[in-house]
């Protein structure tokens, strides 16, 4: 069965060019980049190139790039460094729709370290309440950590505007740009953030490699204590092949940015409009404008997400849901709940996240498959009768 992969906010296909770039470093070129011989130095040179490529993607300087093992490590490193930088400040700020790598860490700091945490709310479109954010800033605030783009809805936060408000207040600004990089322009200099997290496997590099951008001049205390690697900012022998792959992926992502804005956005809009037209009682979650070009979160009244996904799975379609039943907890996603998406459609919300590999034919396949799936599930739902929610 042909797979139609529209779960690119979960992970992406490793690009063929990336695999080719990595292969020698799994095989014959196994040298340690720290070694004092030419053999190891070949790896070091290639890592240097990767660092430059990643820096180019986000308009950073190569020395500002630290390679990590994943987005979660980058997020954790940034937060712990910030609170170590300002040990006397006991207030930290985030939003209530963050990825668990931030959300759960902030909850832990609140519970175990006595931090006062402000979880800034979002409105019904998933947009951040900037008034609450700005009013919560104080002399006690050590860190503001906000995602650039939301993984479930694709909604964008105005990081640049926020950075301008925070500047000069002695507060560090970290952004989790894991979902934004490669989909919209991420420019660290123009945005003015202090730290920024990236993940390789969201941009067609392999799993197990991430990046933390640390602005020059920002005090950083490492999370991994070890050797001198990454200029002492992250101990541990470099994951050379993956870092080299991420370098190639970053180069490709930069080249593909215009494709995201054109082809991918058009495919997403086509899928969205066709589903809204062909299926009754469904609605898009999140602001339609301030949103990633590849993401569609759409809720179908009176049916449940896991059932939809498993039926789509039979047609080779990969998507995901914010619904409880797929995540092991019982409530719908904290993102949709924070947006006050009504239960009637929150439980039946599906996320399609596209990449430049997707085609119009694949969108048509999804539309053709999804219409009867929703009909079938509604036919057995006690909340659906005579073509409407009851």
């Amino acid at each position, binding site marked *: 069965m042909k797979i139609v992969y529209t779960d690119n906010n979960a992970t992406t296909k490793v690009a063929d060019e990336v695999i080719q770039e990595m292969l020698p470093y799994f095989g014959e070129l196994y040298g340690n980049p720290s070694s004092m011989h030419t053999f190891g130095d070949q790896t070091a040179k290639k890592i240097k190139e990767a660092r430059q490529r990643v820096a180019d993607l986000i308009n950073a300087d190569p020395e500002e790039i630290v390679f990590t093992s994943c987005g979660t490590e980058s997020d954790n490193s940034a937060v712990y460094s910030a609170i170590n930088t300002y040990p006397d400040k006991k207030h930290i700020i985030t939003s209530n729709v963050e990825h668990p790598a931030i959300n759960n860490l902030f909850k832990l700091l609140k519970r175990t370290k006595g931090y006062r945490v402000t979880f800034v709310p979002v409105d019904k479109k998933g947009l951040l309440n900037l008034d609450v954010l700005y009013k919560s800033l104080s002399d006690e605030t050590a860190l503001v950590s906000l995602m650039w783009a939301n993984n479930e809805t694709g909604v964008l936060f105005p990081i640049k505007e926020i950075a301008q408000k925070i500047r000069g207040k002695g507060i560090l600004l970290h952004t989790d740009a894991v979902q934004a990089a490669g989909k919209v322009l991420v420019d660290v200099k123009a945005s003015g953030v202090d730290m920024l997290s990236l993940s390789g496997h969201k941009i067609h590099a392999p799993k197990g490699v991430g990046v933390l951008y640390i602005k020059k001049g920002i005090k950083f205390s490492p999370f991994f204590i070890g050797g001198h690697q990454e200029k002492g900012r992250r101990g541990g022998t470099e994951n050379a092949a993956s870092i080299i792959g991420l370098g190639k992926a970053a180069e490709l992502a930069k080249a593909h940015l215009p494709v995201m804005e054109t082809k991918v956005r058009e495919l997403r809009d086509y899928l969205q409009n066709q589903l809204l037209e062909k299926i009754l009682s469904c609605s898009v979650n999140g602001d339609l404008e301030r949103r990633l070009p590849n993401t569609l979160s759409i809720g179908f009244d009176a049916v449940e997400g*896991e*059932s939809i996904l498993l039926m789509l799975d039979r047609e080779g379609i990969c998507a995901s849901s914010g619904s409880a*039943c797929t995540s092991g*907890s019982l409530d719908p996603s904290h993102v949709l709940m924070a947006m006050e998406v009504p239960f009637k459609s929150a439980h039946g919300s599906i996320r399609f996240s596209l990449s430049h590999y997707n085609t119009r034919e694949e969108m048509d396949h999804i539309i053709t498959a999804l219409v009867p799936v929703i009909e079938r599930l509604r036919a057995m739902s*006690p909340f659906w009768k005579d073509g409407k929610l009851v």
Partner: protein
Amino acid sequence: MWDYTDKVKDHFLKPRNVGELKDANAVGETGSLNCGDALRLYLKVNENERIVDASFMTFGCASAVASSSALTEIIKGMTLTEAAKLTNEDISDYLGGLPKEKMHCSVMGQAALKKAIANYRGVQILEKPGQVVCECFDVTDLEITDAVKKNGLKTTEDVTNYLKAGGGCGKCLDRIEELIESVNA
């Protein structure tokens, strides 16, 4: 992905006895749109109190649909007295087991059946005895201690998996912990 048995997948993809039963003379409903799953069970009971037909309508995940389908297959041909003895484990066993996080789907089947039988007999199900502990999912302390005793539950997570209690806002988790301790003391 959930590790569903072939039987669960089969009952999800080809559910038996779906839809409204036109000549039903008993109906039992449980769950809600808010909870994320709900089941309406229809029974046709003959003069000898035997279930001659059963059907269901379900909103929920694959295991909720499969549990509902299995329930209707199990109870067809039973007398009400026999059906009243059915447990959620019987439903789960019929399906070759459910992931523990999904046990509440079988509990939902048992609850709907209980309500349908009461509906047939014209008995009003009285307010549940005990005190409501979980307000999100309307679960009482007696239901929790009962489930802990019968199923040997050890953690709040177990209780959530069986009864959903504590799976919403989480405010009642401390109270659930106390109840588990009181049973296991």
